[in-house]
């Protein structure tokens, strides 16, 4: 079978490109080594959080940001595309119930009690917005990946948005008998059981103050998250919200599930566990990609390809012991590499390390380009963390970059086809 487009990588970038194309009637196949970085990160769509101080409005900050950072992937996007991608995402995934937009960032508490600006947030996290001020109670559920007392101690001093909030912690023990060493995902499944929620509500009702909103680690249900969260809001009679914590990210798993089922419903296919190990190319075009899930190699053909394998964190880019950095599937030329012989990382952990922004450079159609600025393959597009020039974990732009560049790659393919 020949596909219109094969997308390599099943993170937010790859799934966004695939879903956009499938929605337009394209035959799309997503091939991935494993589930993407969705499972490692919260489901918030951070477009631009820091530049370098906190950003109140991404819409207002972006023009200055892109002109100051002309090599940033955002600077490659046509005006209005980020806004369009954010609005599309919000509407396309009703199960997550995204709130917000580009105009104003939410200010969400992190699991250490720092404050993170975020453009789009799942409905289960929205009530954690610190801009409203007031009293917050954070509930530990005995989860080893969440420390509400430490969180509250920092938050009480943080003065987000210029005014103080009050924060305290409450420990609640759930009936965990026979379930040792609970993980976030395990706890999320437990909370889908009515008896567990009954016990939680019973104990919490006694401990909460009148005007407190209440924050939990992001474990309020997995398949039935909306339901669990709504029920807790109703029964506790106050705003309830989740705080993202260590991977595996339950909110990220929900996002992956929502995106992958939307894709399947739109006619797309996903092969997870089938890494692409190479490609057939000729005449400046990619003809096919090669996978080798078992001993036998398989070849998949398509008209266009999207590379969304991620950066160093997910193996889309690799660094060898001699300091050589390479793109894993096509061996594409890379930009923003440290000077030869120079350091790749600096002794200060929080420094901007020379290797931080490495990736493939792209043209305005998000095609990887060589040093001369020419597209390497006319039908290969790149998106997400594979693209050079960003510093997403410091800018707080992670999923925003993936969404916008995945959306842009799909747009380029659709325009090329029409």
């Amino acid at each position: 079978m020949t596909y219109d487009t094969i997308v390599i990588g099943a993170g937010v970038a790859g799934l966004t490109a695939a879903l956009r194309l499938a929605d337009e009637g394209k035959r799309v196949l997503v091939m991935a080594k494993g589930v993407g970085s969705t499972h490692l990160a919260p489901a918030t769509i951070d477009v631009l959080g820091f530049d370098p101080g906190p950003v109140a409005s991404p819409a207002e900050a972006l023009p200055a940001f892109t002109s100051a950072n002309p090599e940033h992937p955002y600077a490659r996007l046509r005006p209005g595309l980020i806004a369009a991608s954010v609005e599309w995402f919000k509407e396309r995934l009703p199960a997550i119930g995204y709130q917000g937009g580009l105009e104003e960032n939410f200010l969400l508490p992190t699991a250490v009690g720092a404050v993170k600006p975020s453009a789009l947030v799942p409905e289960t996290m929205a009530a954690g917005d610190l801009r409203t001020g007031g009293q917050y109670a954070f509930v530990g559920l005995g989860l080893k990946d969440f420390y509400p007392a430490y969180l509250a101690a920092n938050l009480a001093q943080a003065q987000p948005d210029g005014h103080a909030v009050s924060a305290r912690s409450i420990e609640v023990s759930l009936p965990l008998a026979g379930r040792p060493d609970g993980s976030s995902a395990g706890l999320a499944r437990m909370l889908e059981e009515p008896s567990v929620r009954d016990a939680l509500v019973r104990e919490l009702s006694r401990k909460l103050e009148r005007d407190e909103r209440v924050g939990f680690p992001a474990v309020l249900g997995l398949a039935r998250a909306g339901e669990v969260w709504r029920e807790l809001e109703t029964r506790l009679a106050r705003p309830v919200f989740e705080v993202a914590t260590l991977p595996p990210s339950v909110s990220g798993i929900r996002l992956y599930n929502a995106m992958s089922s939307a894709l399947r419903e739109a006619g797309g296919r996903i092969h997870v566990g089938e890494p692409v190990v190479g490609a057939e190319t000729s005449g400046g075009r990619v003809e096919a990609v090669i996978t080798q899930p078992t001993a036998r190699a398989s070849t998949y053909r398509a008209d266009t390809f999207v590379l969304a394998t991620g950066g160093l964190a997910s193996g889309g880019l690799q660094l060898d012991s001699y300091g050589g950095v390479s793109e894993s599937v096509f061996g594409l030329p890379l930009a923003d590499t440290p000077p030869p012989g120079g350091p790749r990382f600096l002794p200060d952990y929080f420094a901007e390390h020379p290797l931080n922004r490495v990736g493939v450079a792209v043209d305005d159609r998000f095609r990887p380009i060589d040093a001369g600025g020419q597209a390497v393959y006319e039908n290969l597009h790149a998106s997400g963390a594979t693209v050079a020039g960003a510093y997403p974990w410091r800018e707080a732009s992670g999923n925003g970059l993936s969404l916008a560049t995945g959306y842009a790659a799909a747009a380029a393919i659709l325009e090329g086809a029409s």
Partner: protein
Amino acid sequence: MIGGGSTGAGVARDAAMRGLRTVLVERKDLADGTTGRFHGLLHSGGRYAVKDPDAAKECIAENVILRRTASDCIEDTGGLFVCTPWDDPAFGDEFVAGCRATGVPVEEIRVAEALRRAPRLHPGTSRAFTVPDAAIDPWKLVWGCARSAEEHGAQILLYHRVLGLERDGRRVTGALVRNELTGEELRIHADVVINAAGAWAGQIAELAGCRVNVLPGKGIMIAMNHRLVNTVVNRCKMPADGDIIVPIRTVCVVGTTDTRVADPDELEVTQAEVGEMLDEGEKLVPSFRRARALRVWAGARPLFSLEEVSDTREVTRSHALLDHRERDGVEGLVTITGGKTTTFRLMAEVAVDAACEQLGVDRSSRTAEEPLPGSEDGRFYFLGSRLRAREPVPQTDEIICECELITRERLEETMRRRGSANLDDIRRTLRLGMGPCQGGFCTYRATGILHAVERLDHRAANASLVSFLQERWKGVHPILYGDQVRQARLDDWIFQGLLGVQHLPT
């Protein structure tokens, strides 16, 4: 007693066991200096059999004693000396002769047998010899000595820096020390001061106006994520850079270099040194560069020399006892330096002998007979012990550091016992954050727990977290490649993206 490395802790124990009123002062944590920064080899003496026979004899004698008295700190891995394609097989004969002459048990085995014991060894290996090398855990060893010293009445003052030695004419009468955590100063009176500050011994002796020529020799080591070998493997040649791989705990360590440095507190690791070490590793175990490297560090050997030398490899690995009465006309001060962790017990014994002589006390050491706490049953440590303790019964206790199988209960108990806000102290006690993720998952958890156990305010807890990250990064950034760079990038996402720790006040 000045210095909290293996020698200092050994001295404190030996002196306390002889009934001397003893106090140990250490400027940082126990085993924070050279003792905690070596490859973990309990020498058989084979390494020195040809080049430094006196050191070889000391090593094998102490090896036998420690196997008996510190068994819980030792994994009996055995050791091999192998001739790789880069080594002259004829050196093997010289090696065997050296071992025989110094009493190091040695046996040549067939190469096929060596490859059976260490299947990843270079298949072009031409000769192989067994020796009783082993792996020794420096933190367990030092803490064992310290605990035993305390049981015998000694006092251990950590994070106490010696500012000066008290003098009464030509006699040293004690020390002025400062509590580094509180800033409080303290005068300690002592009839004898023993200087076992290792690579820093020259600095301490200078406080009494004595010149001790200690040459800090920098050695770098790299820990690999897997035990590429399960027995110690040495290159069968004269001592050189990168000539050994030691399997210890969950990792194996390749070492080492020997470069003279001016200041034992300034030990930088360069990309070039890392590259050289990996190339040498490749000669013992092909594909070494494709294995996952976890961490690199450097230690400062305390090499004592009577005269100026340029190449620190030429300085003997034997220890040096300096009684400053005869040497400098200063009474009440003994310096013990040089040597190796393998010979720490002997060094402690001779140092305390010298102190006893000055004190006019006639009691002899019992450390060669009396086992350390935890080693009474004579059983060696084995790698699966933490798992074995957990496995048989279903446990509800959580594992906070999955890499090193540290439970919440154990972590909380250690935090209470140590009473320290420094997660690196906890690391040295429990190996927190020393596994493949290098603290990626346990740092946040441990900070949350420390915040509660120690009742820290938010700034102190944040400082603990951030300084632990910085400390872990120090040993990671020079060797980041392959899978470990993926791990480091995930850690960046966790700490800077998800948690935003860079925005916290410290």
